[in-house]
């Protein structure tokens, strides 16, 4: 749509402006890591951060949420509506924006998930472009998520003493229009400045995955029976489920009923689930389709690099690196994929 400038000194004022009409969540420090959390002012946030422990998907599909209430004996649900105040997710990295686009595809597909849809509608995304790769675990270059493309209302790019803001939606435009801290300038000049900044940025982002974007899915097509790799990963995995909980594109959940103390009724809710847990693929009668850790790990990778490409024409890995960062068993996405590629060459 259009570009404007924001002086770095006015960042606090920007947050204050947003807070007039929105709840604002942004990356904040938690011990030696980061999490998205409510902020009361610009001084609370840490804009220079590596991906948060849990991605901001938690605001749109919360870890645990109520789906409605029921009375005993009746086969109907009531109070199924949810409340969500207009929320700005501030400072989202491009990989997490891509993650949200994956969830959008899944939850908006007919029949759309009403809870997700309602929350998503109330969310405004203000992204913050990475000018440096966050650490050695990220694979955003291969996944092509390191440069802003779409999926945001406003994108901020660091340009020295100011930010360049790309206003990308009506919602974003309304926000910019409501403040007097933004500076208009010649659009071509800003575009040129942005182009120069990116030319300087891109060489800093090195490829970590050996297969390229186009080679990834074909590699997985051939790797299902690469037992060497899957058994090794399966042996080391402790099935803690962390890699899926932290993944911006994982969306599996379990449904539960919580009955009130007086037993007159209760609440039905859902909670994040994980394909890494032993019970996940267990069905009535006790049969478990993925009893082996190796098959559960393989499943996770295929849910990122193969199945969604067939189904939605989109990789469900954003390259954020969270799964590798969080794995206490040091199972690395980069190593696994590169090992698969190696195996492929050997054949």
């Amino acid at each position, binding site marked *: 749509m259009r570009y404007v400038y924001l002086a770095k000194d006015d960042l606090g004022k920007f947050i204050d402006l947003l807070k007039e009409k929105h709840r604002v969540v942004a990356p904040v420090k938690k*011990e030696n890591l980061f999490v998205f959390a409510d902020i009361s002012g610009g001084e609370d946030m840490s804009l220079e951060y590596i991906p948060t422990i849990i991605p901001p998907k938690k605001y749109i599909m919360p870890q645990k949420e109520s789906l409605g209430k029921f009375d005993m004996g009746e086969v109907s649900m009531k109070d199924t509506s949810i409340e969500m105040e207009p929320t700005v997710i501030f400072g989202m990295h491009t990989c997490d924006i891509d993650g949200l686009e994956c969830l959008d595809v899944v939850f908006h597909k007919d029949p759309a998930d009403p809870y997700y849809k309602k929350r998503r509608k109330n969310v405004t995304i203000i992204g913050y472009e990475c000018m440096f790769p966050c650490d050695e675990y990220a694979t955003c270059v291969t996944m092509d998520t390191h440069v802003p493309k779409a999926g945001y209302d406003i994108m901020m790019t660091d340009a020295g003493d100011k930010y360049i803001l790309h206003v990308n939606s009506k919602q974003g435009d309304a926000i910019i229009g409501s403040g007097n801290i933004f500076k208009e300038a010649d659009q071509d000049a800003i575009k040129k400045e942005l182009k120069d900044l990116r030319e300087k940025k891109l060489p800093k982002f090195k490829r970590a995955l050996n297969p390229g974007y186009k080679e990834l899915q074909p590699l997985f097509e051939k790797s299902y029976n690469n037992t060497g790799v899957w058994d090794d990963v399966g042996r080391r995995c402790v*099935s803690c489920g962390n890699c899926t909980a932290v993944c911006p594109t994982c969306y599996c959940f379990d449904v539960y009923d919580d*009955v009130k103390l007086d037993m007159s009724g209760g609440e039905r809710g859902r909670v994040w689930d994980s394909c890494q847990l032993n019970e996940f693929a267990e069905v009535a009668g006790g049969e478990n389709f993925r009893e082996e850790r190796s098959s559960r790990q393989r499943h996770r990778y295929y849910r990122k690099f193969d199945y969604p490409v067939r189904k939605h024409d989109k990789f469900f890995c954003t390259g954020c690196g969270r799964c590798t960062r969080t794995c206490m068993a040091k199972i690395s996405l980069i190593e696994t994929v590169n090992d698969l590629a190696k195996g492929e060459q050997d054949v």
Partner: protein
Amino acid sequence: MSEDKKKVRIAFFDFADCEGCQLQLTYLNENFLGLLEHCEIVSFREAMSERSDEYDIAFVEGSITRKHDEERVRKIRENAKIVIAYGSCASLGGVNGLRRRFSDEEAKEIVYKGRDSHLEAGWPRPVHEVVKVDHFIHGCPSNNDETIKAVKSILLGKGYTPPDYPVCVECKLKENVCLFEKGQVCMGPVTRAGCGAWCPSWGNTCYSCRGLLDDPAEQGQTELLEKYGYTIDDITEKFDLYNRCRMDAEKEAEKK
């Protein structure tokens, strides 16, 4: 619920333990009162002096150690419709299992020095190694939220199955910084959830007080702890702390 409907009678019994799990229940406050609409506590040493032998549900706390305790728990089993092993001493053998590292003589010498002629050391066992147990509520101490959940579910006739996923799941949902990311170690990955990741949420390591999962990643966890500089003995000790009785039973089963 109508007044004439018969309330379920619940009784509590303790064996070799600290009674800490029963003590937890006195913190239940209004939740406890809510439950009393459906049940009646007929025996509860932590909070009342009367007792009765007529009950439907028996909460058995503590490990079974001596001959005399075996007889007592058998009697309880006969009287009760439902027996719940309540707390890790009862459900797993718990820390009492550590006693199994010593011979009878050593144990008596350590614990009852000077009085060991008339005191018995006993052999600690989880309740299900002595009588049939219908439901398990793990934890050292037990977690009230889980206890309430289990009791509701049992009263509804659905029974109660504790989670078979690890503490890490609850820990990550809370977005805790993992202890491994701070250079510490944790038994969370192999330990049954249900406590809401109590300890890691307060910066403490998980001791596996709720016991191992049905299919714990023993190999993965061992390799992991080794990477953090733990010897096999240290690791055995970590697994043993609450799971000694189960590990013994598994070894026994392997022999057969």
